[in-house]
């Protein structure tokens, strides 16, 4: 790891200032992704701004929203009574990610901004437009078993690796960020971006902006009928091949509202809007779930080694919905 400066500002404003005035500076929260990337030489910030002690670590409900501070640990959120009761989907997704040790380090903000696990991104000897714009994409015609089936471009077919973010996308969360010009809110589905021809940008966050919290609306129907399913190469401690976050608001055997998002399939957590639209107002039957999964897959495209996801994802959607609905 190359040497760098280290600062520990004592307010969010000072942290934003420290980053804004220094192009090569980066925030560090848990460090579980950033330190790894720095050791590999994938990123090399010249200054780290330690935000881990800023008081952005509370979890509280106000009105219909639950607000989670950006510096809450993944383990704290997953074990929190309010989250387990009102947002079990989020707790499940968090517990499906990484290991207990890493969840004790990882923060909510850091989890959202974790970089892709594409092996070409990590391997400095390989081309990668995300790491080195203009160098090409090694995965496009390479070993792309882990890669995207939705929203990819000729510049990049990497996926966003987070589990937590799939649940937050399904739950219609809002991201709250602070920058030098004040606070703004970004809806979660618009927070991460597709690669297009600028895959070096993972999100719509501006340089210097600090994530301070996420807000999630509570829906008691979803809390009763939700599930996160993660399919991976081993039973635990592996990134998703595909994952599905689903929530159903069922009344009188009718799907009043439904939320579906998938992980491991795109450059961002992928909301399955077409499937949601299909299911709204219908009854929770296997044939409806199958048709919804088919609708979800209409825009999907395989790249060779990841063609299996074209079958695995719809099967995972159907399995998840059937399990929730008990059919």
């Amino acid at each position, binding site marked *: *790891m*190359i*040497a*760098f*400066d*280290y*600062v*520990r*500002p*004592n307010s969010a404003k*000072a942290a934003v200032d*420290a980053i804004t005035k220094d192009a090569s500076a980066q925030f*560090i929260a848990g*460090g*579980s992704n950033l*330190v*790894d990337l*720095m*050791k*590999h030489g994938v990123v090399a910030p*010249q*200054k*780290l701004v*330690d935000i*881990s002690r800023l008081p952005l670590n509370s979890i509280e409900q106000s009105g219909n929203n639950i607000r989670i501070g950006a510096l809450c640990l993944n*383990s704290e959120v997953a074990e929190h009574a309010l989250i387990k009761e009102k947002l079990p989907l989020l707790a499940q997704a968090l517990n499906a990610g*990484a*290991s*207990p*040790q*890493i969840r*004790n*380090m990882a923060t909510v903000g850091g989890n959202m901004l974790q970089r892709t696990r594409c092996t070409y991104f990590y391997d400095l000897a390989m081309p990668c437009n995300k790491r080195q714009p203009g160098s090409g994409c090694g995965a496009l015609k390479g070993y792309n078993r882990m890669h995207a089936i939705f929203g990819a471009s000729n510049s990049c077919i990497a996926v966003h690796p987070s589990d937590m973010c799939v649940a937050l996308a399904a739950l219609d969360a809002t991201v709250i960020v602070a920058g030098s010009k004040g606070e703004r809110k970004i809806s979660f589905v618009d927070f991460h971006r597709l690669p297009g021809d600028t895959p070096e940008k993972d999100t719509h966050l501006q340089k210097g902006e600090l994530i301070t919290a996420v807000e999630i609306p509570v829906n008691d129907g979803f809390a009763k009928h939700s599930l996160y399913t993660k399919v991976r190469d081993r*039973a*635990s*401690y592996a990134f998703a091949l595909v994952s599905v976050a689903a929530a159903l608001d069922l009344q009188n055997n009718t799907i009043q509202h439904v939320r579906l998002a998938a992980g491991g399939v795109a450059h961002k957590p992928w909301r399955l809007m077409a499937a949601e639209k299909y299911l709204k107002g219908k009854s929770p039957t296997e044939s409806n779930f199958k048709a919804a999964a088919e609708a979800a897959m209409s825009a999907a495209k395989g790249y060779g080694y990841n063609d299996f996801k074209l079958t695995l994802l719809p099967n995972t959607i159907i399995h998840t919905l059937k399990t929730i609905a008990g059919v």
Partner: protein
Amino acid sequence: MTNDNTQDKQEQPGELLETRRQFLKQSSAITAIALVAPALVDAAEKKLDEKAADIFEKVPLSIEINGKQHQLSVEPRVTLLDLLREQLHLTGSKKGCDYGQCGACTVHVNGKRVLSCLSLAVMQDGKKVTTIEGLATGSTLHPMQLAFIKHDGFQCGYCTPGQIMSAVACINEGHAGSDDEIREHMSGNLCRCGAYHNIVAAIREVNAKGGKS
């Protein structure tokens, strides 16, 4: 170099804690002379940058390790694992992968299990660290250490310090209720020798005996 220069890196209450690495980036191509004590500029110009860097890159660190308070001075890039092993010669915590993938470096920070290979030492300022060396009480082994011996919870032993630190935390967290739960919550600790079966047996037994620690 006089010791006075080390004053430069002290934290002022309420101010940024900042090291003076910046100006040494390109050896003698000094970019931030204004930030730097004149003696150090002299030293750098006389090609003493390496020595100067030794003093100036470091940040003060106050940390309690296995009950003992340490006042140290470390470079920001030093991980907690390297601090323990290389500087404090506490070689119980193992470097299996150095990238967060194996769990051999697991220690407790403020009572929580974390990976010391992905933790920067400077970020642990003011915290309490427990390593495998701090688990026993005098010559009396911790119940989890005894259970690993009794159940043959290891073969080569390389993963064992991490396994034991994780196992103690697994019970403290209340995640040792069944063999499946133990396996899930021990999944961050890999064992190349495949001692998993006996590790689960050791944890099951300590948990059944109410083995909170």
